[in-house]
């Protein structure tokens, strides 16, 4: 459904991505792995329209979206979930979630979606009225995922959902992602530093290094690939 071809992006005057080409298929769980600063966040931010590419194309269901503004991309069901940040600290948990349903197409099912998010994350229901800035790191992560779900996504872009979480919480988060993937039939592009986990729950993976795509393959194959083992699983 999403095709990226020859994508190059400059960030802060520096080339952060160069000639990146890959594809996310309908209903696929694709992992995007690479070390800190390899360009994973840049890639996701570009896909969601926050950064403009220097060259290359991004197409969603055959329509070019690389020139669109973030809001237009959200309207098409491509939703970015940033790593536990960009919440609205002075709004309640519920208001934060409702912001996720801001696009007009989401209004009708707003209540229903809210219930759905609360069943996935009962913790958020408990904290419904609390201001977002009082949440812990793990709860913030749930909140941004929940906010993304409120927009009724077709393709979720997740930026390091495990960042800064205790190991137990990481497992929980990944479990929720897997459930979402299976029960809702969501397509997911997951950027992760925690390579071993990411490869275990995804079906396919691409590897980014220094702004270039260096490997693509089935997650199971990559998990046993000697080069991947040396470079990423050692960490």
């Amino acid at each position, binding site marked *: 459904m999403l095709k990226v071809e020859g994508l190059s992006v400059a960030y802060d*005057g*520096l080339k952060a991505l160069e000639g990146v080409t890959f594809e996310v298929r309908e209903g696929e769980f694709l992992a995007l792995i690479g*070390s*800190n*600063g*390899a360009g994973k966040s840049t890639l996701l931010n570009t896909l969601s329209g926050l950064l403009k590419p220097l060259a290359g194309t991004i197409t969603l269901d055959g329509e070019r979206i690389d020139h669109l503004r973030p809001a237009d991309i959200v309207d098409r069901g491509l939703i970015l979930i940033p790593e536990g940040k960009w919440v609205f600290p002075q709004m309640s948990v519920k208001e934060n979630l409702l912001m996720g349903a801001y696009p007009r197409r989401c209004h009708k099912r707003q209540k229903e979606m809210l219930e759905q998010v609360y069943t996935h994350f009962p913790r958020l229901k408990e904290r419904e009225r609390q201001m977002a800035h009082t949440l812990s*790191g793990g709860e913030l992560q749930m909140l941004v995922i929940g906010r993304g779900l409120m927009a009724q996504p077709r393709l979720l872009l997740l930026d390091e959902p495990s*960042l*800064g979480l*205790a*190991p137990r919480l990481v497992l929980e988060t990944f479990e929720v992602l897997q459930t979402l993937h299976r029960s809702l039939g969501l397509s997911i592009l997951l950027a992760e530093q*925690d390579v*071993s*986990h990411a490869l275990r729950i995804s079906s396919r993976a691409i590897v980014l*290094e*220094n702004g270039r795509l260096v490997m693509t393959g089935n997650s199971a194959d990559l998990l046993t690939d000697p080069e991947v083992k*040396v*470079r990423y*699983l*050692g*960490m």
Partner: protein
Amino acid sequence: MANLLRVERAIKDFGGLRAVADVSLELRPNEIVGLIGPNGAGKTTLINCISGVLKLTSGRVWLNDHNITRWRPHTICRAGIARTFQIPRSFPRLTVWENILVSSRSGEDHARAQLELVGLAAKADLRASSLTFHERRKLEIARALAAQPLFLLLDEVMAGLNPTETVEMVNLLCQIRSSLQIGILWVEHVMGAVMECADRIIVLHQGTKLVEGLPAEIANDPQVIEVYLGERYEFREERRAQG
């Protein structure tokens, strides 16, 4: 008398959050100490507190016999503790040479030598905004060295470097330690580099010191594997040979 940087029971709170909880450590010249741990473990906060950018909630920092806990960053720098930032903070509208001069305290020859050490001498007259990410990183290190420090605090200097650049950086750090006799406290995520290069490693977890030891000990420590490494780190001889 040997120089010594000593952190004594450091605690740093942000509002209700305790980012650093009772950490003590010592650093000597000619020694590289790696500071590792998961994100949010308090590594960068600790660096910020030592360099005076943040003030400790309680605890002390000693440089030799001086209690530098409450000193302002520029005095700490002049006293002999220089640092780099996680995201390089070069002065974009200054030239590379001017960037070096900001911190240089010891004449232009010394400053130029630092620029040569990191291999940026040819770009001295360019604006820092025209450097690549890797070059900005090197400029930061040169700038820190130009202040003639006794101790150097490095914040993730390997992040975003490709394998060749990583090797280059490892060599540079080793050179700084042995030829300049500078003690380095080094926050890093790239385990390969830390394991090869550090003399000692401290693992931080949720603001406290989990363990401290030689790289080999850390790599096999069950606690560290549990909270951070995920699985055993294997030293690979053939990789070192390649490097």
